[in-house]
């Protein structure tokens, strides 16, 4: 037997080598000084590092525990009125805007959410309205106060402003499967992982059938971890966002360091926004952003045949099959016309004042529904889905036509 790969030796070191290989590898290592040296040196590296740790004393932990519960108690006692002073002016303005823009309520009360009907909520809403705008007409409910129409055409791409990047669609984070011509994509997006093997491309189903596209690059294997709150890695070897992503977004993105600096190609136009179709040197390049709710992840890649390295557009793969670029553009654009709400959370997962007001008006004890992954994040959520989303944040809509 020739010397096993380093990875195999490490599997052996970790006790993770499959049974069927264990004996053969063990026998080899016992008779091979070279492999034994590798294992021994690795053990030494890891032992010296592990044993170097010096834990603080218990006193410090007790101090931290006390602080922890003070913070928890403080957070639990947070009341709706804490945001009222800040939001008062905004609400008054929005009430006026609503009066101008809409003759009818912007949103119907979704059925099945008794929390809307709580006396406490109504009292809160009424109190807010009374306090803020004596002259304003009576609102249908607190939810009206923050609805806004965000058609795609009116949202310019601003690479310096992370908050616009999810404006093009509303509810995201569904499930999608796809495959390119020769490699299978495994895994699912939303509350789990999308494991995309090298050279694969496919789609992630977004909202009510909106396509998001991912294309993995070259020889690398990447994964998107949707559930843990961080976008990891890059998707296409030709699209790397270190320079292109707005500063605020950097905190949400993890950059893989396997791409040498000189291979980084910025693509600022395709970082923010939804669908982009550009003419470049006589070639049409289509790119889509896939934003995932719960954190901000933006992936953009030309939808192309990557088998032979060309950039020929082949359409967009969806659960229903290949969709042409034109069809996707229409679908994408239409989706952006839905009314949506914007929720902003800071690095600590605290909502900004407007977000807090919205949530207060919708969901009593909303903070119980805010996942810990909501930090440093701007969410655009379709208005009708907001309650469903927050209550069933971990739900994963099925892809019907895999």
């Amino acid at each position, binding site marked *: 037997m020739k010397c096993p790969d380093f990875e195999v030796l490490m599997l052996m070191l970790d006790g*993770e080598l499959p049974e069927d290989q264990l004996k053969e590898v063990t026998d080899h290592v016992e008779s091979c000084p070279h492999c034994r040296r590798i294992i021994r040196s690795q053990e030494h590296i890891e032992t*010296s590092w592990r044993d170097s*740790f*010096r834990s603080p004393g218990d006193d410090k932990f007790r101090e931290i525990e006390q602080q922890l519960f003070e913070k928890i108690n403080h957070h639990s006692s947070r009341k709706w009125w804490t945001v009222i002073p800040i939001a008062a002016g905004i609400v008054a303005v929005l009430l006026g805007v609503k009066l101008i823009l809409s003759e009818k309520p912007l949103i119907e009360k979704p059925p099945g959410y008794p929390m809307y009907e709580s006396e406490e909520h109504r009292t809160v809403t009424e109190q807010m309205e009374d306090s803020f705008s004596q002259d304003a007409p009576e609102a249908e409910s607190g939810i009206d106060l923050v609805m806004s129409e965000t058609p795609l055409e009116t949202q310019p791409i601003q690479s310096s402003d992370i908050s616009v990047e999810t404006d093009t669609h509303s509810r995201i984070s569904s499930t999608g499967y796809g495959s390119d011509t020769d490699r299978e994509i495994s895994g699912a997006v939303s509350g789990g992982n999308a494991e995309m093997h090298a050279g694969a491309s496919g789609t992630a189903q977004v909202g009510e059938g909106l396509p998001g596209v991912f294309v993995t690059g070259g020889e690398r294997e990447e994964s998107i971890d949707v559930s843990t709150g961080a976008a990891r890695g890059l998707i296409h070897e030709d699209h790397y966002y270190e320079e292109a992503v707005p500063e605020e977004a950097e905190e949400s993105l993890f950059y893989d360091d396997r791409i040498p600096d000189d291979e980084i190609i910025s693509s600022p136009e395709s970082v923010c926004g939804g669908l982009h179709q550009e003419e470049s040197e006589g070639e049409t390049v289509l790119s889509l952003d896939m934003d995932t709710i719960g954190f901000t992840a933006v992936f953009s890649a030309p939808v192309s045949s990557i088998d032979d390295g060309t950039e020929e557009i082949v359409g967009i793969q969806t659960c229903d099959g290949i969709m042409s670029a034109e069809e996707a553009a229409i679908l994408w654009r239409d989706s952006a016309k839905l009314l949506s709400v914007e929720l902003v959370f800071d690095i600590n997962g605290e909502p900004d004042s407007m977000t807090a007001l919205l949530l207060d008006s919708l969901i009593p004890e909303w903070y119980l*529904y805010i996942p810990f992954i909501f930090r440093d994040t701007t969410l655009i959520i379709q208005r009708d889905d907001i309650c469903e989303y927050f209550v069933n944040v971990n739900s994963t809509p099925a892809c019907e036509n895999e």
Partner: protein
Amino acid sequence: MLLSVLLVIACEETNPDLELLRKAKNGDREAFGELFRKYEKRVFRVARRMCGSDDEAWDITQDAFIRAMQAMDRYDTQYRFFTWIYRITTNLAINYSQKRMRRREVCFDEGFSADGQQTVQDDLDDRVACDQLFRSVEMAVEKLTPALKAVFVLRVDQQLSYSEIAESLGIALGTVMSRLNRARGKIREEVGSMLGEWE
């Protein structure tokens, strides 16, 4: 009925904190405090390994438990608590790291020392060599990307199995293996010639 009883028993066997978690989910602060005291050192240690300073590690430790408390309603008791809290911790640490990387700060905290690592060395020369090795390893680990570092810390420092790491980080088993392999490869590259001392 029998099946559900068996399932409950099986769940309790795989999740030793089930009772505490049930209480904590119902708002029992004492139960949550007990969970904190049970896992505080491990969480702090992961945070400290992942980030640049003791102060950051304390912040992350507190934040992790606050977020756990806030999200307790949605915690699925079929998963072990430590994998869940590790996930929160590593995510927080990654966020902290990103901020720190942006500030271009190189933090190499003096809090770590080589104390206690001379378990196998008998003479001064060996201790010096070991100290150098430790410093090199520490710097190499510091240079790892957060994702690689998270896997390395959970495996080497916390000695979690691959499946536990996968559960903790919410990544696939294959990803655990590939990241761990890359992390080790990078560290060996950094340590370089010093490996000769021990090979």
